[in-house]
């Protein structure tokens, strides 16, 4: 492989990795807050893509312009998912983990069905947009603009998340809730409100990723699955609950996956990512940056 | 209290990173005695306790049980040799009934379910919660949970029983019942080490008191003498001042 080809694969891997991190961080946030693994995460991504597509179809505005609207919508959806589903799942007295997994799995199937019902199972895409199909050529290394934009959004989201967790009352409430759920009630924080906000935030983050993906990817009721699997691996690799871990693991997974496809038969490139995960947790059972 | 000690702790230290939890602690426990391990918060009682139970590895030193070096042995194996324990915050098996909880311990000594069940019922009667045998463990009151923990540990037929703050949070009447139960256990020939934070409750019960302070052995001897020891008083007063 030439140096240029290597740099190309590396750059593509990093850009994809930033996107993986953005998809995964919402999952990690929700987990860190309340120990819930959300099996409908991929479907939230899909909903965000359809929301972008639907709004684009209705308003002809560019996806970039639609981003705040879609993100806000996803925030509301996340909060609703908490109030409508997860809140009840957390009431379980025993095997809480399994109940959550299957309640959110049921939600995932339901959302897929709704998507098929309202949008038909056809493959949609946004053929024309400001960024779509445009590419930066830096000395023979091509950086597609939608992915560059996605990478920037991802970095901004992580910076914002850092500030939010570190500087705001909401961040402190989140932190307090995840430290000790019982104590929170004593200091007068409404647990349900914090959880709902946490879900809203987590789903809004995956909403950002959905808008970016809608620019350059196809849209389909089942589009979430492969991304969700990667997101789970990213979250676990980085350490459940760790925001920085999600970013680091996302980048690692993106690069490893891209490089593996040049070394292994491409059909088996995911094996490299999976082995990496296993290798890391066998040495560090709580991931790269996990607490536990 | 004659003959060779059941437990010998020799120069045991424990470091957590740069933090020293126990520093060069040596201690003998005689067969059949009730030993009180006391000291203010952060004295290193729980750490020492967990090292004896095998839940934590030592950094340095040796622990011998019945003359046998058990320093590197995991908790499971120590249980097989005859060391039982309870937990500071009771850890019952919450999907099981009270009886089943105790049976888990019983399988240490027998693989016949019938025999284990019969023995477990006896043990439950012995600790005084025989009437709750079929209740789910999760429904027990806190004092009942402490008794369940004790029954579970007794079901493994220990020679040495480690009790971790079993009196904490009990009303005076409950504590009195607890004291009676511990005496009854000792009368069966079981050696007991109990960690307690509150001295007043345990002093009449223990044969010998060992006071830890800042990870080191501060005083040891007859409980009546120990509570009058200046060093001990300072250690506890110091803590009260800090707390205030």
């Amino acid at each position: 492989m030439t140096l240029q080809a290597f740099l190309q694969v590396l750059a593509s891997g990093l850009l994809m990795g930033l996107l993986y991190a953005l998809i995964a961080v919402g999952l990690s946030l929700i987990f860190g807050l309340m120990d819930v693994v959300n099996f409908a995460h991929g479907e939230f991504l899909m909903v965000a893509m359809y929301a972008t597509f639907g709004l684009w179809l209705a308003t002809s505005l560019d996806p970039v312009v639609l981003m705040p609207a879609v993100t806000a919508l996803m925030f509301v959806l996340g909060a609703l998912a908490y109030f409508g589903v997860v809140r009840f799942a957390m009431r379980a007295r025993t095997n809480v983990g399994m109940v959550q997994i299957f309640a959110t799995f049921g939600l995932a199937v339901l959302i897929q069905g709704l998507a098929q019902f309202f949008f038909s199972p056809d493959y949609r895409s946004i053929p024309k947009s400001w960024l779509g199909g445009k590419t930066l050529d830096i000395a023979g290394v091509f950086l597609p603009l939608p992915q560059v934009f996605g990478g920037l959004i991802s970095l901004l989201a992580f910076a914002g998340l850092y500030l939010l967790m570190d500087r705001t009352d909401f961040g402190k409430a989140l932190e307090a809730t995840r430290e000790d759920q019982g104590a929170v009630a004593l200091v007068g924080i409404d647990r349900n409100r914090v959880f709902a906000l946490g879900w809203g935030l987590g789903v809004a983050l995956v909403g950002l990723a959905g808008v970016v993906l809608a620019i350059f990817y196809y849209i389909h009721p089942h589009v979430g699955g492969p991304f969700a699997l990667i997101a789970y691996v990213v979250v676990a690799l980085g350490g459940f609950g760790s925001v920085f871990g999600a970013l680091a693991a996302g980048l690692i997974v993106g690069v490893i996956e891209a490089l593996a496809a040049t070394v292994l038969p491409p059909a088996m490139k995911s094996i490299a990512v999976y082995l990496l995960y296993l290798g890391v947790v066998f040495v560090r059972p709580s991931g790269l940056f996990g607490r536990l | 209290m004659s003959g060779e000690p059941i437990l010998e702790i020799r120069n045991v230290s424990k470091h957590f990173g740069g933090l020293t939890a126990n520093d060069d602690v040596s201690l003998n426990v005689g067969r059949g005695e009730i030993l009180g391990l006391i000291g203010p918060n952060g004295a290193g009682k729980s750490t020492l306790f967990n090292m004896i139970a095998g839940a934590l590895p030592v950094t340095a030193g040796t622990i011998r049980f019945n003359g046998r070096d058990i320093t590197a042995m995991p908790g499971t194996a120590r249980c097989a040799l005859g060391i039982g324990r309870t937990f500071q915050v009771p850890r019952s098996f919450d999907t099981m009934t009270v009886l089943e909880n105790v049976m888990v311990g019983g399988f240490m000594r027998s693989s016949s379910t019938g025999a284990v069940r019969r023995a477990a019922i006896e043990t439950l009667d012995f600790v005084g919660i025989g009437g709750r045998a079929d209740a789910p463990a999760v429904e027990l009151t806190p004092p009942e949970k402490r008794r369940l923990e004790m029954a579970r540990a007794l079901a493994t037929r220990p020679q040495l029983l480690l009790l971790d703050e079993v009196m904490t949070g009990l009303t005076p009447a409950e504590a009195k019942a607890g004291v009676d139960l511990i005496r009854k256990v000792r009368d069966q020939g079981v050696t007991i080490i109990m960690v307690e934070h509150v001295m007043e409750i345990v002093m009449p019960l223990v044969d010998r008191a060992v006071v830890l302070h800042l990870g080191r052995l501060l005083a040891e001897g007859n409980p009546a003498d120990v509570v009058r020891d200046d060093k001990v008083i300072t250690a506890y007063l110091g803590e009260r001042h800090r707390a205030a």
Partner: protein
Amino acid sequence: MTHRQLQLVLLSGVVIALAILPRVITDVYMLNVLVLTLMYAALSQSWNILGGYCGQISLGHALYFGVGAYATSVFYASFGITPWLGALAGGVISMLLALGLGYPCFRLKGHYFSIATIVIAEIGLLLVHNWDAVGGALGIQWPIGPDSWVTLQFARDKAPYVYLALGLFVITWLVTYWIEDSRWGFWWRAVKDNPEAAESLGVEVFRSKMAAAALSAFFTALGGGFYAAFVSYIDPESVMTFRFSLLFALPAVLGGIGTLWGPLVGAAVLIPLTEITRSYMGGSGNGLDLIIYGALIMIISLAKPEGILSLFHRNAKPDARP
């Protein structure tokens, strides 16, 4: 009569009723649903050993199912060895695999363990997908032969498959029943509820997990062998995907995790629901069947978090948590 004897009587009743069923129901489609229900009950019972009793939530059991299906198919299609032996071989291979994988994996806790099982099953899927000696993506076609209990091929008759699936369920049930009241059963539940406390009571935590994994993998592979014989054609996508791992856990969770009857009750609700919504509503292609299926799973798991079975417990336990 003790509680345990009552269970055996109940099982006999269920077995007799189910054995008579193929003589009453003659509809091939309904018998097919019955076969699947019993098969998933057996597979979920196998999963329950590790996931329900021992508390190790595996979401990668499709791997063992696939190993069973592939071992049986390769032995039969390539060497003419009867699926009875093939499934047994698959069971043994799976058991060894589970022990080998358990060694590193049981160091992991909670979600790290579950994700590891997903990832390992995905690796297995990709390897089989790209392994030409076992057909790769093309899969393995069973030779079409006459009806026979040796080759387990029956052209139109579903009753033999009902009996085979029922047999598999009864075996997994009896094994669970027997273990539930033995040292291993107590140890597994102790490991699930509180590993630290279990260790202090002399429970061999690691060995308990390994034993549960081996047994669970063995029976899951037998189920895979049965499925291969039942369908007579397998490919990686139709026996090794994540979907199956979920389908093994789901009945136990819906019925009552870590209970003797949970898997059967859960499968009896879930499988007919899945099949019938698809068959009678799926033809339109508008996703309505998925909407109903998804909503029902959600509602059941939320309304009865301890499983459908908890409906029948007389001493329904009050909610201890806020």
